[in-house]
């Protein structure tokens, strides 16, 4: 208590010193000699501090200060000179300068020490480095401040009147110090939320994050404990692990001539390790979501490498043709190579030239065949910077989850590159089922998602998830219907943020549809309208000087924001009549009976439109038991109120859902191929999904179907020959399988298929072997009705007519 009172007393004297001296001289008639006694008292006070301080720096500083103050006091006393009395503020400045300067020379800097005291978690934070750098700058700024303040204090001693000296050192100087504090505090606040943990991917070095910082985790999220002992928990990887693994892959890559490397890893951690190793080693990376053997063969040349985390199933005969490198093997092999300790070999991890590093991405092919898009890493880096600028504030202390494929641009940026650049931990595997969200309700999450997943979220769950803090959800890959966004918000508490972009352009703009359908472009994107009415974008992540013209029609506002008006290829000419496909779709939805619809242009004997419709609950109720022709006529008659007969759809399909690919995109050519198979009263396709070489379709054979006639009249079941014929018809139509069947292998009919019971048929076509493999199962996959494989006649020029059941 005594000590505390003394401390307050001396601090008050120290702070008020200039005022006391001024008053002493001016009003109280004290001589400099008398006043020097106060200096002696202050020297005594600093001496007490000196004896208490533990750190060497502090002792040196206070020791020096005591000596100087004492010297001044003695001079002032002996010479009875006021100048020495007035030097005290200069000495205080000098001592602080020495102290701050010393911590710069011997880090951690003073400001960083204070920051660490204030926030204990900083040591494990991905922001560690950035905060340290920032604090160093702050410390330098303090030093400069003390120099300037000290010089002014000296000037006031020798040049100015007592009054000015007192005014400056007793008031102005304090105000300046206060201002400095406030300004620095405000800047720090701003920095902390924005860039603090962000490091451009190309600038990452092995000490960019603390060794124990969490990089990724698996299904069950674990939190890194303070000791940093997290690496042993399954799935968890720390920054140290990441650096080592990248280094191992680099040793492997650099020991080989192969380039470019085709890259496909389902595990986002392996993917990120492999990608960073390729970038740092100067190997071009071909990032493909499609790992069908046929596709890889198509793009692979002999000198290419192929790095993946999953071997092709079986078939050793192909292994020779398709050299596949498993990343797990690479890591184990390179680890063994330096088994005498990782230290034996230098860690390879460091900066790379972003303008030289090359990548190739493949589009998902919404409108056409997948297309290779060439990228330089600079483009991604510029976009990451932009994303952090716009959204970075919201991400602090969150974990990154994904429902999308990280081999496509949006997933690549949001779920692989961003976590690495910002130091946010990411989950290694995708969230596949909306119900899984319940498991992460306790986490603060950033989730990169898609309209497909969010649609399922609203369809498959009916309760809001009890999120501790609402996740931040992004949606990209296609337009997110407003009602789906609203439902997603009801379930999660966050109205999804949509990102509009493409493989060629990267992210262009963003919106939350609760605020309207207008898109706000990222600041670096300069929008204009091209001659054909489509949106043109120029940005720092589009290399072409003329920018990129999308296929999207646009209404561009003066402030750069815009509304999308549908795709330009959505305007088609049917027998010379122009019609907008979205308009027809919109009119069909206006009936209030349609949940989802796609209208596609078809070319047969004539051009016409065809519509694939998913009825909503009201539609299903209204049309229950109604013949298809009557349903067609209903929609046809409705449309004729708005559009001409020629451009009204001529063919109709009613599905349970529209076919989507894994990115949640509905491809026009999938819908078109549905109409390639003539409608028949004998079977219905309820839904289907086409991936390269694989078709999955849900079928229904009505009791009235001809297929059930004359087999067992008393017990109707689907004849085997019909099942095989159906496979052939589907395979020919959807998978481009040759017409002629050469033989059937191991075909088994295990269980009868009954009328009006939906069945799922999965057909896989191996083009090289000329084999069609099929299986009919129940919808839940539990009952196998039949399976087998068909060998097609690959040489036959033309097949016979279709063999109907």
């Amino acid at each position, binding site marked *: 208590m005594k000590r505390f009172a003394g401390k307050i007393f001396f601090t008050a004297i120290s702070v008020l010193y200039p005022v006391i001296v001024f008053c002493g001289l001016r009003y109280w008639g004290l001589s400099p000699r008398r006043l020097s006694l106060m200096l002696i008292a202050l020297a005594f006070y600093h001496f007490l501090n000196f004896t208490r301080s533990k750190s060497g720096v502090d002792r040196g500083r206070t020791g020096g200060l005591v000596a100087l103050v004492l010297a001044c006091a003695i001079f002032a006393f002996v010479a009875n000179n006021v100048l020495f009395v007035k030097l005290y503020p200069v000495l205080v400045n000098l001592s602080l300068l020495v102290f701050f300067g010393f911590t710069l020379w011997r880090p951690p800097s003073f400001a960083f020490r204070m920051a660490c005291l204030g926030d204990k978690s900083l040591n494990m934070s991905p922001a560690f480095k950035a905060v340290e750098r920032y604090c160093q700058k702050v410390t330098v700024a303090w030093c400069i401040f003390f120099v300037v303040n000290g010089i002014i204090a000296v000037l006031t001693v020798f040049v100015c009147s007592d009054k000015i000296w007192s005014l400056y050192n007793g008031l102005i100087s304090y105000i300046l110090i206060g201002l400095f504090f406030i300004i620095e505090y405000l800047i720090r606040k701003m920095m902390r939320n924005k860039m603090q943990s962000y490091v451009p991917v190309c600038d990452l070095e092995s000490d960019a994050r603390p060794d124990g910082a969490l990089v990724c985790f698996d299904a069950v999220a674990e939190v890194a404990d303070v000791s940093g002992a997290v690496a042993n928990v399954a799935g968890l990887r720390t920054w140290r692990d990441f650096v080592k693994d990248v280094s191992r892959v680099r040793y492997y890559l650099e020991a080989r001539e192969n380039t470019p490397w085709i890259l496909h890893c389902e595990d986002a951690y392996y993917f990120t390790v492999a990608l960073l190793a390729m970038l740092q080693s100067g190997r071009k990376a071909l990032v493909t979501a499609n790992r069908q053997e046929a596709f890889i063969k198509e793009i692979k040349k002999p000198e290419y490498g192929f790095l993946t985390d999953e071997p092709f199933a079986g078939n050793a005969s192909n292994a020779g043709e398709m050299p596949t490198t498993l990343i797990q093997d690479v890591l184990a092999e390179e680890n063994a190579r330096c088994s005498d300790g990782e230290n034996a070999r230098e860690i390879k991890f460091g900066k790379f030239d972003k303008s030289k590093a090359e990548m190739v991405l493949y589009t998902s092919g919404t409108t056409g065949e997948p297309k290779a898009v060439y990228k330089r890493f600079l483009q991604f880096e510029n976009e990451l910077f932009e994303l952090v600028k716009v959204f970075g504030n919201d991400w602090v202390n969150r974990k990154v989850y994904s429902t999308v494929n990280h081999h496509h641009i949006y997933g690549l940026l949001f779920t692989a590159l961003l976590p690495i650049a910002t130091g946010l931990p990411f989950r290694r595997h995708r969230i596949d089922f909306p119900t899984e969200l319940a498991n992460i309700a306790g986490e603060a999450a950033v989730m990169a998602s898609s309209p497909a997943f969010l649609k399922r979220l609203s369809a498959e769950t009916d309760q809001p998830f009890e999120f501790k803090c609402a996740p931040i959800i992004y949606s990209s890959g296609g337009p997110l219907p407003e009602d789906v966004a609203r439902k997603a918000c009801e379930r999660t508490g966050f109205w999804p943020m949509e990102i509009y972009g493409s493989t060629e352009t990267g992210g262009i703009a963003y919106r939350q549809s609760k605020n309207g359908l207008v898109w706000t472009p990222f600041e670096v994107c300069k929008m204009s309208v091209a001659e054909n009415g489509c949106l043109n974008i120029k940005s720092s992540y589009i290399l072409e000087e003329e920018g990129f013209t999308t296929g999207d029609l646009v209404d561009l506002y003066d402030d750069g924001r815009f509304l999308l008006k549908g795709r330009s290829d959505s305007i088609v000419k049917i027998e010379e009549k122009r019609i907008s496909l979205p308009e027809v779709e919109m009119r069909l939805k206006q009936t209030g009976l349609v949940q989802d619809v796609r209208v596609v242009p078809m070319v047969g*004997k*004539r051009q016409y439109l065809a519509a694939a419709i998913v009825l909503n609950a009201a539609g299903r109720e209204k049309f229950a038991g109604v013949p298809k022709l009557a349903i*067609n006529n209903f929609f*046809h*008659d409705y449309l*004729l109120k708005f559009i001409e*007969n020629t451009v009204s759809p001529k063919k109709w399909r009613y599905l349970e859902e529209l076919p989507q690919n894994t990115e949640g995109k509905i491809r026009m050519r999938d819908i078109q191929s549905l109409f390639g198979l*003539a*409608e028949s009263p004998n079977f219905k396709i309820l839904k289907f999904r086409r991936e390269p070489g694989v078709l999955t379709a849900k079928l229904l054979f009505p009791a009235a179907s001809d297929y059930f006639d004359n087999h067992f009249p008393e017990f109707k079941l689907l004849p085997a020959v019909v099942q095989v014929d159906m496979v052939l018809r589907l395979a020919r139509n959807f998978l481009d399988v040759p017409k002629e069947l050469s033989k059937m292998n191991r075909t088994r009919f295990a269980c009868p298929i009954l009328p009006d019971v939906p069945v799922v048929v999965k057909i896989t076509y191996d083009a090289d072997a000329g084999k069609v493999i099929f299986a009919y199962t129940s919808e839940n996959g539990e009952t196998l009705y039949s399976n087998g494989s068909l060998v097609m006649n690959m040489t036959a020029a033309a097949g016979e007519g279709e063999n109907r059941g």
Partner: protein
Amino acid sequence: MSDLNTRIKEVMIESLELEDITPADIVDSAPIFGKNEAGEGLGLDSIDALELGIAIKENFGVTFSTVKEETKKHFASVDALAAYISANSKG
């Protein structure tokens, strides 16, 4: 329903690749193009008309006048078409 009418309907369905329609669904007296007040009719469009004209010519060996109004009359319904074909194919 006469055989000729059924034949005409089959030709229509086949040549115009009509889906979900059987000959029984087509009303003999109903308009082929557009609809009547009762809402009956095939609702075919002008492109279909050209296509159908060719198919009828090929299948039944009849030709149509180049006067639009007259031709329109013959294509009014399946009945009208049947009448025109039976009147002209004999000659």
